[in-house]
């Protein structure tokens, strides 16, 4: 993959570049603020951009706004936003920007997740391929804030686990590996979840994630 990194901390920027280079990806640009990020995406048309939410000059949500702009103007570039905290509002903004297109191509992770190198790189690949990667923390918040307590209550504990992983954007194969069950039983759980929540089943991973997220957020 060809990747652009936008992160104001030099330590983090170097670390990210190292991880991605080690996983045989190409970091085409590493910048420290949102304006440079937009310019770099314009110039390189990367497969994915890794974007810190808080960047100069205001240190508020410059990165997030740039991420939304990239999703709007460069649908081929996936955007993985990461930050030190998870803010519910940012999730809504990002998913709002994502659902406008057929493909999602967005991710929102806590910075800590980069410690698990392979999972992080996998999440980035998913986003670059038009999928979704949401932090477990985001999913927990969505579950907590969801008004569909009846629907969620009707699920078994295992089905809730599967739903949470699905909301993070993982494929059936990844869910099966995480829960140490067969892919076949994941498929069965997914079918059950969709029928109990009254959602139309969908084959494409990102479409079903969006359906689940819309359900949780509505």
């Amino acid at each position: 993959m060809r990747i652009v990194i936008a992160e104001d901390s030099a330590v983090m920027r170097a670390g990210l570049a190292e991880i991605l280079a080690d996983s045989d990806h190409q970091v085409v640009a590493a910048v420290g603020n949102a304006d440079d990020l937009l310019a770099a995406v314009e110039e390189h048309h990367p497969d994915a951009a890794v974007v810190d939410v808080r960047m100069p000059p205001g240190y508020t949500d410059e990165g997030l706004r740039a991420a939304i702009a990239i999703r709007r103007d460069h649908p081929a570039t996936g955007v993985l936003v990461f930050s030190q905290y998870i803010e519910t509002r940012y999730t809504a903004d990002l998913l709002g920007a994502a659902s406008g297109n057929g493909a999602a191509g967005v991710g929102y992770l806590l910075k800590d997740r980069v410690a698990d190198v392979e999972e992080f790189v996998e999440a980035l690949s998913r986003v670059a391929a038009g999928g979704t990667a949401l932090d477990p923390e985001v999913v927990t918040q969505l579950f907590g804030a969801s008004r569909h307590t009846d629907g969620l209550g009707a699920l078994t504990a295992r089905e809730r686990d599967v739903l949470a992983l699905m909301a993070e954007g993982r494929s059936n194969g990844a869910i099966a590996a995480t829960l140490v069950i067969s892919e076949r039983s994941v498929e069965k759980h997914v079918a059950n979840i969709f029928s109990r929540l009254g959602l139309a089943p969908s084959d494409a991973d990102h479409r079903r994630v969006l359906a689940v997220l819309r359900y949780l957020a509505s």
Partner: protein
Amino acid sequence: MRVLDGYVPPQRSVLERILIRSWEYRRLPVWAGGRIGVGIVLVGLGVVTLSLGGNDWATYGWTMAFLAAGAANLAFGYWFIAIAYRPLPQRVRELERSRAHLVDDSAARLRRIERDLHDGAQAQMVAVTMKLGLAIKKLAGMTGETGQTDLERVLELVVAAHGGAKEAITELRDLARGIHPHVLDQGLGTALATLAARSNPPVDLVVDLAERPSAAIETIAYFCAAELLTNVTKHSGARHATLEVVRVAGLLQVRVRDDGCGGARVEARGGLAGLAERIRTVDGKLQVTSPPGGPSVVTVELPSRA
């Protein structure tokens, strides 16, 4: 929440400011009592002179002098009382203003601490975990065949992570010290001695405090001294500096002199402006004398209680 930039300090007349600088505000009633006492005695003396003296110019002269001096003293006494016991609504307005400023000041401090944590220790720790994550990946990949180059790479990563963790510890320690300097519990003198000893260029320390100021004042005095010495190190190019902390006329005076290049100014959003804001919360004062070419003298005056 009000923003710091919009803060308007309480309006005080020049005379009042001189008064507050000269004496501690809370001693005003005592001073007023003294002035009124002296005033009554002088007016009494005027009356006595008039009744005992003859019908001549000397008697009238003394009488007039006593009465005028007495009236002046009474007027001053009345003025002190008027300031000390000024109408409640006005005092409440002033207190509201200074409280709002205090709240803003502590909010700004918290914001700064959060920012420091976010940019410093947190980022550092994430970088450490990234390096360790990579090392784990390498080690896991090595379980099959052992490659010498990969071992060297793993060593490199672990060494870098080790260094990063140590830096994070240093940053956390500095940050904790920035929130509350532990050494301050042992008194301002001890804390300043530690501060001066850590300083580069060398600092001569003069501390003369008969009694301990209140904790809030000690903290502000300490941070002023720390900030001013940091400025000396960073900007002045001085070879020598002096830090004086003494009591002058009931005020705590913190003064830093250096033989550096001068040119220090209070600029919006600069370090000195931040210092001035903090000092103002306790009715203190910051004075900067720093001509181009030096030497610089920065004086902070604080009440000894707040």
